[in-house]
């Protein structure tokens, strides 16, 4: 074996032994959880015109009562859904699917409004022999022309051998959809999967109340660009704020320049008559229309008069290319974020730089330029946190680089930070 073969073999062994860190799974899971569910495919112009019709349809829907209260879901539902169910809102479905091992899924009620479709279903072990804690049935709505995300919460009722679930889609089905199907997949005790479905005809006359959409059209500066908070949509089930972070053209220009500036979290607060409305979630998505966001809150109380929406903060991920001279006791500024250099120490050919930033500021891609030679970041030490008098939290950690030198600079190619706004973006008195 010649020297090159030996070196290649060594590399092969080295990579064969390389294992993904344990942290990867959690990182991927967290990233996916934050990810806004996909949106439906862009519709053509005719469909878009039909959608306008859909909005009108929702607005003309009348309140309906089915004269039977939804029982057993009290602890699964949040305040608004509980109230609606007590008022008898929604469409009774009362259909079920029985799996071969005796597990039954019963779809009790569906509630539709302009912000989404909510399902109430029960999973019951009719054999009463299984551990209901281990029972897993995945329920996914299969609605043509709709690719919205969904979220749900369930409760296990051990004594009754049941699970009760409330499940919401992020968008209502398109107006021309009459039949909705729930696809069920059940992983059985022997490890095999069994599938089933429950279909029902959507009765739009039983849609829950009206959905009111109000324009906001407030532009806010974000990382050198303009973000638009477009509108707020208020339905009996939820309140949704939507807007655009970046249009398609600007997104294309960024891609061409290999630039990247993207918010990954947005904090907003909604107040109805001065009382904060619970935030349910937020998401962002990029599609043919550009990059858009939505932030979801609980429904507004019935007699809300004054509404106030505040933009609290936006967390941004930005790729850049900066070289910064460093010295102990100095403060660097990257995109408006301060990085304080506490100390620079050298030991065994390595350089240890201790920095302090605000809690939300991270520089995951950083290298050390020492006398013109670049050294990789080997490790970041455990962080310590300190609360300032103005409530801001400071984070101190040590970056370890594989090399040292006299003239040192930090090369920063990626930064993640949180920009605080604390800005009222919409205020309205509802008559």
């Amino acid at each position, binding site marked *: *074996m*010649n*020297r*090159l073969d030996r*070196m*290649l073999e*060594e*590399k*092969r062994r*080295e*990579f*064969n032994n*390389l*294992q*993904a*860190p344990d*942290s*990867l*799974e959690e*990182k*991927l*899971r967290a*990233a*996916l*959880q934050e*990810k806004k*569910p*996909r949106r439906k*495919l862009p519709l053509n112009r005719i469909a878009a015109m039909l959608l306008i019709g859909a909005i009108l349809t929702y607005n003309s829907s009348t309140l309906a009562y089915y004269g039977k209260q939804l029982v057993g879901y009290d602890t699964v539902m949040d305040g608004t859904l509980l109230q609606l169910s007590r008022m008898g809102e929604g469409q009774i479905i009362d259909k079920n699917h029985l799996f071969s091992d005796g597990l039954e899924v019963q779809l009790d009620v569906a509630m539709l409004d302009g912000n989404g479709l909510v399902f109430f279903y029960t999973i019951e072990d009719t054999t009463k022999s299984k551990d209901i804690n281990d029972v897993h049935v*995945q329920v*996914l709505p*299969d609605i043509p022309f709709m*690719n919205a*995300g*969904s979220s749900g919460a369930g409760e296990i009722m051990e004594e009754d051998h049941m699970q009760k679930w409330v499940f919401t889609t992020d968008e209502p089905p398109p107006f021309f959809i009459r039949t909705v199907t729930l*696809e069920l*997949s059940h992983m059985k005790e022997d490890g095999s*999967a069994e599938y089933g479905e429950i279909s029902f005809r959507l009765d739009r006359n039983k849609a829950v109340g009206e959905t009111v959409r109000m324009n906001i059209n407030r532009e806010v500066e974000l990382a050198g660009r303009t973000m638009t908070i477009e509108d707020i949509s208020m339905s009996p089930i939820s309140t949704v704020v939507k807007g655009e972070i970046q249009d398609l053209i600007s997104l294309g220009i960024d891609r061409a320049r*290999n*630039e*990247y500036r993207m918010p990954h979290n947005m904090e907003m607060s909604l107040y109805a008559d001065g009382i904060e409305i619970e935030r349910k979630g937020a998401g962002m*998505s*990029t*599609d043919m229309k550009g990059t858009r966001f939505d932030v979801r809150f609980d429904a507004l109380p019935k007699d809300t008069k004054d509404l106030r929406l505040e933009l609290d903060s936006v967390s941004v991920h930005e*790729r850049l*290319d900066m070289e910064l001279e460093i010295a102990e006791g100095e403060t660097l500024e990257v995109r408006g974020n301060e990085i304080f250099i506490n100390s620079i120490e050298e030991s065994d050919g390595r350089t240890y730089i201790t920095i302090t930033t605000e809690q939300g500021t991270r520089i*995951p*891609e950083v*290298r050390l*330029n020492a006398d013109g*030679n*670049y050294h*990789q*970041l080997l490790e970041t030490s455990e962080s310590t946190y300190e609360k300032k008098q103005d409530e801001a939290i400071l984070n101190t950690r040590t970056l370890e680089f594989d090399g040292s030198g006299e003239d040192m600079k930090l*090369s920063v*190619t990626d930064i993640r930070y949180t920009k605080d706004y604390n800005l009222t973006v919409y205020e309205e008195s509802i008559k």
Partner: protein
Amino acid sequence: MNLLGLQILLGMKRGETVELKYLVKKAKKGDKEALLKLILQERDNYYRLAYVYMKNQQDAEDMVQEMILSLYDSINSLRKEESFYSWSKTILVNQCKGSLAGKTRVIPVEAIREEAVAFNGEEDRMDLDHYLETLKANHREIIRLRYYLDMDYKSISEVLEIPLGTVKSRINTAMEKLRSAMGEENLDEQAR
């Protein structure tokens, strides 16, 4: 008769194919857990592939993370479910390259050549990567995929989306360049 489909089934264990197709279908419908399961089943391979390009843990993890987010957005464009792994790895490779393209190339090639020459006398102290840095990016890449990751020609062809013949010829050229960069007199110890 779908010969291609049959071939794929014969090439994989049937259970694996069915599970792969099932999970991809679920992922296409927006099932995040299904997508996660697909990735975690091959987590080491994704991580190694990203590491080959990014050369450090954090960047490699970030790239796998960016890949899963891209897959979530674009999985509906995947026509053949059984091609999920080669398709996703192509996306990962492109993301790594995109990320690296955004970074400044920092080591002048001439400096490395000089360093490489200086180390010729102490052969094993010089890491193979230092020699590789003197090659063109596509030559570096193909050597790392073929020899570091032990990928076969077909997999390389699928992931890089280049013809099989190009893979073979590029590997040959890259190896010649690498031998030349290392200095031929040091190559074959058995011959000396």
